């Protein structure tokens, strides 16, 4: 066995996978250690990839050369584009995924990856020389020397499962937990805290009465996550919608004193984004029903996920409430719902590179950073892996700005603002949402992925061709039409006729018109790439709004260039208020832009910093 690696990734979940692959693909001998090979790319909760904002992240991972989107496409059994009622910026792809297939495919990718070494085992210690990472030690006492470690431990650090008054020291779904690593991290001085999340019960397909529920089918039009995906994505699976009722709510309220959330067994912080059913009932007493979606865990899998019934109530209450729901009266539980508590880091200890502050060679990604969700984890894993690689190669770090990617927003939020609960991505967190669309993720990020060495020639050529095609199409939008030519199409839409003719671009700019009207007027546009045409339409329609945000984007970009960095001494700065001085010293912002987003740092403090930087520069 090799005992020395460039980098070691601890954990084979969604963060660990992207971290390990990006390291290996950029030429680093990498070891990935996972508690069990059976849980590589494991999805312990919902059987979906994507969703609002999360779908965007998957697209971004794909554009940067990550793996999640490609494998998700291959494992998809139903696909839906959410939010089609609103504009393109909030369209979000959400796929039902076959969990077993996803795991199996991911495991294969890892094992076959050149320069990547996969090992089942538990890392008990990260070895340091002072603040510098020098190796890791397994439960067998085996030592691997390395200059860099990426922590991707998910919810496995000292995790505890809770169902009613039953608790067990365990990882999710019977997988063992990591016993020793969090002590090692605490001893090294890292801020470790405890978060909580949960999952609903799984029931047997054959015992559910789907006839009384509302079926939910996939979309007619299918858009894959990955630009790689050429094979048709599967889309035959059906989900079903049913509802809780006053009886369900009564059962829960009658037993609320037996809920670990309310009787004091669980004290850690859970996410508002994934509330348990008991939380929903208690907090929203007036609501007489809640939606329950029944979703298959896989194509040939008889386990059905009961979305909406996440709970840690005792087993008998779980049974009773389940059986009170229409169509689930006879449902047989295969696995009970549970809450899980786990150790994680206070993410304010992180730099935007996902390096741990004050350490050399220590990176961290995924749920250990206080996020929730497969996609959030994968996005961080990719960035941590990339930066770990750049560190090993002595290169400048890679940070995505808030106007460049949801991944940028995610990481900036975590390490600049911190979080008091498991952090879920939402489109409303992205102030430049109109720019960060899922349809343009490749335009935003492929070139960056290429520079990082993560986008191969074939893929890059494909992207360049698409880009050229778009530029050509953009020029064609200058075609002009006389009023007579537009007459029929415009009248159908009750649209006033332009007196002196109109260009294709102007037609698309009108909020009441669209591509279809244009195609009616000019057949040429029926022959072009329809995806690009509608993308151009989106960009033209958004133009006015994007312009409104331009100044703040410009300013942010300029501030981004003013570097502060980890070693900046805030005590040297005259005129900084005490609070700002403390906050800045703790957060150690990379640049002025990040500094300006720290709570407790006001615009005046920023100007004081500017002045100081200027003086120093002279």
């Amino acid at each position, binding site marked *: 066995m090799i005992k020395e690696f460039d980098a070691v990734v601890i954990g084979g979940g969604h963060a660990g996978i992207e971290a390990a692959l990006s390291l290996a693909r950029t030429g680093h001998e990498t070891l990935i250690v996972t508690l069990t090979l059976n849980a590589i790319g494991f999805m312990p909760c919902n059987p979906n990839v994507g969703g609002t904002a999360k779908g965007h992240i998957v697209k971004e991972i794909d554009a940067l050369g990550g793996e999640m989107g490609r494998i998700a496409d291959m494992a998809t059994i139903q696909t839906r584009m959410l939010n089609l009622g*609103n504009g393109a910026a*909030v369209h979000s792809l959400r796929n039902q995924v076959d969990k077993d297939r996803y795991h199996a495919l991911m495991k294969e990718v890892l094992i076959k990856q050149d320069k990547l070494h996969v090992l089942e085992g538990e890392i008990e210690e990260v070895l340091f020389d002072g603040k510098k990472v020098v190796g890791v030690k397994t439960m067998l006492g085996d030592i691997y020397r390395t200059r860099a470690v990426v922590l991707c431990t998910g919810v496995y650090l000292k995790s505890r499962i809770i169902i009613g008054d039953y608790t067990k020291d365990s990882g999710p779904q019977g997988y063992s937990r990591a016993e020793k690593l969090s002590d090692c991290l605490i001893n090294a001085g890292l801020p470790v805290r405890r978060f909580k999340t949960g999952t609903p019960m799984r029931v047997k397909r054959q015992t559910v009465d789907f006839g009384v529920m509302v079926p939910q089918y996939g979309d007619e039009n299918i858009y894959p996550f990955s630009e790689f995906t050429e094979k048709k994505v599967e889309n035959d699976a059906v989900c079903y919608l049913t509802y809780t009722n006053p009886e369900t709510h009564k059962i829960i309220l009658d037993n609320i004193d037996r809920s670990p959330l309310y009787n004091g067994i669980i004290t850690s912080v859970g996410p508002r984004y994934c509330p348990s059913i008991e939380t929903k009932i208690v907090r929203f007493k007036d609501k007489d029903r809640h939606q329950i979606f029944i979703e298959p865990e896989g194509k040939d899998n008889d386990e059905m996920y009961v979305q909406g019934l996440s709970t840690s109530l005792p087993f008998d209450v779980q049974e009773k409430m389940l059986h009170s729901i229409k169509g689930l009266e006879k449902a047989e539980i295969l696995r009970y719902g549970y809450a899980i508590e786990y150790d994680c880091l206070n993410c304010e200890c992180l730099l935007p590179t996902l390096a741990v502050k004050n350490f050399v060679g220590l990176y961290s990604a995924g749920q250990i950073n206080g996020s929730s969700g497969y996609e959030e984890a994968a996005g961080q894993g990719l960035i941590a892996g990339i930066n770990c690689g750049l560190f090993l190669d002595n290169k400048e770090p890679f940070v995505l700005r808030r106007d460049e990617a949801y991944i940028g927003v995610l990481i900036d939020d975590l390490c600049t603002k911190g979080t008091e609960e498991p952090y879920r991505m939402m489109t409303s967190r992205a102030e430049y949402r109109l720019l960060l669309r899922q349809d343009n993720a490749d335009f935003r990020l492929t070139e960056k992925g290429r520079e990082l060495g993560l986008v191969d020639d074939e893929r890059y050529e494909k992207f360049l061709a698409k880009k050229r095609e778009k530029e050509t199409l953009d020029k064609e939008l200058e075609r002009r039409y006389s009023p007579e030519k537009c007459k029929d199409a415009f009248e159908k839409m009750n649209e006033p006729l332009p007196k002196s003719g109109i260009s294709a671009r102007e037609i698309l700019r009108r909020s009441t018109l669209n591509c279809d009207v244009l195609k009616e007027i000019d057949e040429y546009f029926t022959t072009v790439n329809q995806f690009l045409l509608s993308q151009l339409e989106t960009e033209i329609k958004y133009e006015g709004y994007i312009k*409104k945000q331009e*100044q703040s984007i410009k300013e942010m970009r300029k501030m981004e260039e003013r570097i502060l960095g980890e070693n900046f001494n805030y005590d040297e700065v005259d005129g900084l208020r005490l609070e700002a001085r403390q906050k800045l010293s703790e957060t150690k912002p990379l640049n002025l832009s990040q500094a300006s987003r720290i709570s407790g740092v006001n615009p005046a403090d920023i100007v004081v910093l*500017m002045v100081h930087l200027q003086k120093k520069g002279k």
Partner: protein
Amino acid sequence: MNNTIVGVATCLGAPSGINIIRISGEDSFPIVKSVFYSKATATDIWEYNKMYLGTVTGEDFKERAFCVLYKAPKSYTGEDVAEIHCHGGSGVTKAIFNLLINKGARPSEAGEFTKRAFLNGKLTLSEAEGVADMINAETAGQVRNAYKLMSGELTKGIEETELALIEAAAMLEAKLDYPEELEEETKPAAYKVLVKAKAICDELIRSSAGTKILKNGADIAIVGIPNAGKSTLLNAILKEDRAIVTPIAGTTRDVIKESVEIKGIKLNFLDTAGIRDSGYDEIEKIGIEKSRTAVKTADVVIFLSDATVDGEKEKDLLSLLDGKKSVIAVNKSDIGKYEKDGIKICAKTGENVDKLLEKVIGLLDNDGMYEKGIITNERHIAALKECVGLINDAIAAYEIMPSECIAVDIYAASSALGRITGKSVGDDVIDEIFSRFCVGK
């Protein structure tokens, strides 16, 4: 957010012969050129870094001034910068300042010129050192103090607007982020909240009309034909031992002459005298011109009628009062033969001057400024106007644009308010989503 900013580069409070109004940003040249006329050299053939003499023309004033353009990046901020050098005196300067805002610039935030200069790499060492103190004194302190100084009624109004905007945003966002889980349609309800926000904001702006008066005092013009006794009246007012008398700083134009504080309100008397030594024809011409300017900028006009002169001779001047709050005082009624309407006073003896001033203050009081509280800060008014403008944009586009676009305007409106309160709203919206809606898996 508006990209082109305007600020007074010299100190408005201190006496100075000249004030410099600086405007920076992409639109600064077109904005300045739209108000500045130079007879000698048309603005479109101006050279950069060269000073031109001309006239700034507003709706109700004309002012001789110098103008100079600095082309980016060779300017203080590194952007296109224009400077207007005008006569000292806060009245003139403010009029030009407000004109530029009406033309599309926005008042600069404290330290904003410096910030831009810094970001564009233009700040010199000495400037850097110089601004450090300024910033400590001005930025944060100014924002917060100015906010604190506002009356409870006003902060309440601003907070209500802020909350309404957060509420509207949360309603739209909940549906955008939870399209499946959230069953109800939130867009119509959010619209109502926006309309409410607009109403509150409009009311705040309306009340800001009295602003200037509380902060800088009320401008009272005394007009009348030559020799009607304007200066005598002014002296009578000033001679009265009833108030602190302070000369207004930085006036070189003889427009604002003296101010007096009466009943807690500062009254600035715009004297249109001082023209008596010129030839008579000339006097009349200049006199009317000067009076016209004074009347237009004044909050209240005292028309001093001369009982010894035929009313026909005062007709032209009297017509200036149309649409203005005014009081007519009839001077020399003890010796004059013409019977006229108005408060009969004797400027010489000071008889009935009390009554006259009471009437003047009464007119100001009608604004109800004491009950409501008034926004006293130009930046606050500009921020509120921007806020309401953006809410209007959101309302106008509400039916035709998708929610994520409407949200852009709502957030921009809140961040305009944030320039008054110093707060930003990002996380408040998310908190509001989860406290209001049962969403999440």
